[in-house]
């Protein structure tokens, strides 16, 4: 049976990882390529690189990172942030990424999902969704709304409706980020995750709120997620991926334990 995937997420700005990642080993903690290799060897099932470079003329730096990561790690990795056009997708995939994720660019131009899926296959196209809980209304019947700009801009789009639309357009996977839970380390948004994951036929990666292995058990069981994104809980050395996987396995969740 398929294993649930554990996916560390690295934020990259101007070719350097941004969070103060603490490790004892002799590695450059600011280098996304070395960090990628570290997580590859530590048992990550996949890695997400999120480019938060503000200036678009610095994008070639990220492509160089992608090329070097692809020569170093031999598991799938995806790249998000700053991907707005079919050309951006092509450049990133040719540089060696397995998948690209689009978020606000897809909200503004949903057709980018269809174009990407047609050109490269659905398996390459991940829809990133930033979602905030709101009172249910006729416009937002699920009570979960799509937001962009880190949650500052409400889009008036229902999260469940948007997820279904993205599937119709050809998205192969959804990375679902709860803006309410993000950064709290108090657990994932289980109700949201379950709502989306049980109503779309494609895999859902839960994101936002991971602080402890029991949160991951909750989101993979109760939330029905297919994969869980993690950041701080491994970046700061609080847990190793092996510790997390042993905990999940002991809780009855199938994970990949040999690598």
């Amino acid at each position, binding site marked *: *049976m*398929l*294993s649930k*995937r554990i996916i560390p997420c690295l934020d990259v700005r101007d070719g350097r990882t941004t969070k103060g990642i603490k490790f004892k080993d002799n590695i450059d903690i600011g280098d996304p390529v070395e960090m990628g290799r570290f997580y*590859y060897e530590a048992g990550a*099932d996949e890695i997400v690189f999120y480019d938060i470079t503000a200036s678009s003329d610095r994008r070639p730096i990220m492509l160089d990172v992608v090329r070097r990561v*692809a*020569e170093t790690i*031999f*598991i*799938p990795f995806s790249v998000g942030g700053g991907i707005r056009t079919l050309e951006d997708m092509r450049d990133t*995939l*040719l540089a*060696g990424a*397995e998948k690209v994720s689009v978020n606000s660019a897809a909200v503004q131009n949903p057709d980018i999902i269809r174009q990407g899926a047609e050109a*490269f*296959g*659905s*398996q*390459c196209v991940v829809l990133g969704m930033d979602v905030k809980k709101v009172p249910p209304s006729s416009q937002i019947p699920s009570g979960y709304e799509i937001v962009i700009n880190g949650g500052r801009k409400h889009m008036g789009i229902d999260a469940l409706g948007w997820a279904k639309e993205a599937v119709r357009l050809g998205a*192969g*996977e959804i990375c679902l980020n709860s803006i309410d839970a993000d950064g709290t380390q108090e657990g994932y948004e289980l109700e949201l995750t379950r709502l989306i994951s049980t109503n779309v*036929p*494609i*895999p859902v990666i839960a994101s936002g709120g991971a602080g402890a292995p029991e949160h991951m058990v909750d989101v993979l069981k109760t939330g*029905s997620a*297919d*994969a869980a994104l993690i950041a701080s809980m491994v970046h700061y050395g609080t847990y190793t991926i092996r510790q997390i996987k042993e905990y999940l396995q002991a809780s009855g969740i199938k994970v*990949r*334990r*040999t*690598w």
Partner: protein
Amino acid sequence: MIAILDYRAGNLTSVERALNHLGFPCRITDSHEEIRKADRIIFPGVGAAGSSMANLKHLGLDVILKERLEAGTPILGICVGLQVLLDYSEENDTRCMGILPGKIRLFPSNLMDGDGKRLKIPHMGWNAVEFRLAHPVFANVAPGSEMYFVHSYYPDPADAHQVAGETEYGIRFASALAKENLVAVQFHPEKSGPPGLQILSNFCQWNGNPNPAR
């Protein structure tokens, strides 16, 4: 030299990068001459069966592949590179190469896991492969290793003797096939971490004899 067949499929470079990492000289090529001279051939692939078969025929690579198979060159098919080896694929209603008897079928949409949850299609992620044969290409893969899969169609070979490995996803399907100097896998060894690299490395040193050395 190892020839990586260029039939305009996606993701040829990930196999090339893995072989570079392992130190085996390789070239992505559609040149018949170069493929004829190659010591081994890798037939990778991401894409749909219909367009893959059309490209193979257009480039004359289906003919070369059969010729090299007869000549005894070790050949490794990956993902779509496995699927088009069979007789027929339900994807795009495609007549395939007919090198291995059997069909490629779409996963049923009503598959359930042990907890009664509906399984998602594509089958995407890490899953175990239970190797059935003591085959040199699958030697030294640690027990319990999982491989990375991305596919919506699965191999249903007609000859049980050609099943080299099996995987469970709502149904049990053949995830590795082997016949003489040909090996084919539904998973992506180039994306499966150290156990996948072990399989690639084994293939790159394989002489095409399916019986393990004694």
